[in-house]
């Protein structure tokens, strides 16, 4: 349903953050997008959701297609209405608003009241804790609750594709696992997920396919199960260091020249 072709993104016309990335998110799938800090993961999500413009970024080459339609030039509001919702990195809740108002805001682009009611019911099903906290200020929720609210808020638009930017950030292992399960449930419910993560273990456990990004380029593009077994991914992302060194992914690649990444 989502196809990104040879995407190039520049910030302020000079910083090339994404350099020729192609990727695909099929219907109802969970696709993981992994990469170190600054690799360009968030930039790709913003390019898809139309939020680049507010950041001084611009798509300089390539295209984003959704259900066969190029959406590269659409503004963010139109893209939300088409059925793509993004959960920003760091949750970005409206802290001074109640949980309920955050959810209402998430439904801003919803087609009608019936759709909003359905989405609300679904969010309460996925996150029962939010029901008890619905009159609390979002800013006072626990970290885990905040991430659930951030996801719930995006789901209020009844998206067909959910872009999730590092949902495990700053959460305890149990909560990370819980969020992982939620992601599987969301895709089982008919919403595809493009999942940006630093936590490769969690992401690849729930994803069907994975991409590894490095300085704005895709260096690995494989089924999630294969990536989970891949030596270099295990070493670099799963913390299973052989020598405990702080080797970066690039030097790992150089050390093992027999492996050729699809570039």
């Amino acid at each position, binding site marked *: 349903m989502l196809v990104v072709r040879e995407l190039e993104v520049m910030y302020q016309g000079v910083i090339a953050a994404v350099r020729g990335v192609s990727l695909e998110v099929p219907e109802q799938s969970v696709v993981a997008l992994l990469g170190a800090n600054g690799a360009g993961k968030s930039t790709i999500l913003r390019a898809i959701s139309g939020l680049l413009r507010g950041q001084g970024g611009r798509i300089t080459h390539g295209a984003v297609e959704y259900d066969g339609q190029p959406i590269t030039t659409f503004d963010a509001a139109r893209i939300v*209405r088409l059925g793509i919702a993004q959960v920003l990195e760091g949750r970005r809740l409206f802290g001074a608003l109640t949980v309920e108002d955050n959810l209402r805001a998430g439904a801003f682009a919803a087609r009608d009241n019936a759709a909003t009611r359905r989405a609300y019911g679904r969010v309460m099903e996925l996150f029962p804790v939010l029901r008890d906290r619905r009159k609390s200020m979002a800013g006072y929720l626990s970290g885990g609750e905040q991430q659930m609210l951030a996801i719930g808020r995006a789901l209020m638009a009844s998206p067909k594709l959910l872009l999730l930017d590092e949902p495990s950030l700053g959460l305890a292992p149990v909560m990370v696992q819980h969020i992982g399960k939620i992601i599987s449930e969301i895709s089982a419910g008919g919403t595809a997920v493009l999942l940006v993560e630093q936590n490769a273990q969690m992401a690849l456990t729930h994803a069907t396919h994975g991409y590894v990004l490095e300085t704005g380029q895709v260096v690995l593009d494989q089924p999630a199960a294969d990536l989970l077994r891949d030596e270099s991914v295990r070493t670099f992302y799963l913390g299973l260091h052989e020598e405990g060194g702080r080797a970066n992914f690039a030097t790992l690649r150089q050390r093992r020249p027999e492996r050729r990444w699809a570039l």
Partner: protein
Amino acid sequence: MTTFIQLVFSGLALGCDYALIALGFTIIFKASEVINFAQGEFLLVGTFVVSVAMFTWRLGFFPALVIGIGVTSLIGVLFERVVLRRMIGRPPFNIIMVTIGLDVLLLTGVIILVGGRNPSSPVPFDTLSGFSIGGVEFGANAIASIVVTALVCLGLYIFLRYTRYGLAMRATAIDQEAARAMGIKISTVYALAWGISGAIATIGGIFLAAGAGNPSFDVTLGQSALVAFPAIILGGLDSIPGAVVGGIAIGLIYVLTQGYESGGFLGANFHLIAPYLVMILVLMIRPHGLFGTRKVERV
């Protein structure tokens, strides 16, 4: 005692005018972090248009009011669309200079149109009417100013609390990018803020023009908006309740010091600086004003 009640009532009424003016600043600042230095001239333009509609075109007060509000809001929206939109991301100082430019432009425009004569204050009733109880005068203008301010606040509250676009405005004020991610158009929110602000300015301007029972007003009307500055700072720049409380507080301080200062050791014009002194004192204790936000965050 009679004097005290009288002063409190007058102070409250004046404070409500200030509150209306302060609200205009606050709504724009909350939405877009722009301090609109042309707000004073919005008051003047709005009041002037209502006056022209009433006395030149011979319309009734309420149709004239609708036209005045429409014109002022439109100027605000157009200014946002045509000028400010291109300034997004520029340093605040540049944006402030542009709003000062608009201020001068609007003032000059009105001066040319007025042509040296003072326009009549557009009011729907005799400003000198009223009644008195136990020696306390309740002027019609003062009562109207209190009632209308209360209605404006109620209207704003309902709009912000219960409507879709009200929620969009509150969300945008907190986090623009997150709001955009929900499909909220920032340009619509800005336009709304400038429009509402222009409407409120028109209402505030009319009360200010009619304030002292003057049959006419002159082009310095806009400058009186500056008295709302201590009110905004006192309440906290980004707080709507703060604008109202700050406005009323400044009105009370002004009128009470004016009423009691004569013969006092502080001299005869102390009321002119009293609001600023209170503002400075409050800022020393609470740098964000009484109601200004520090972010709501879990610690």
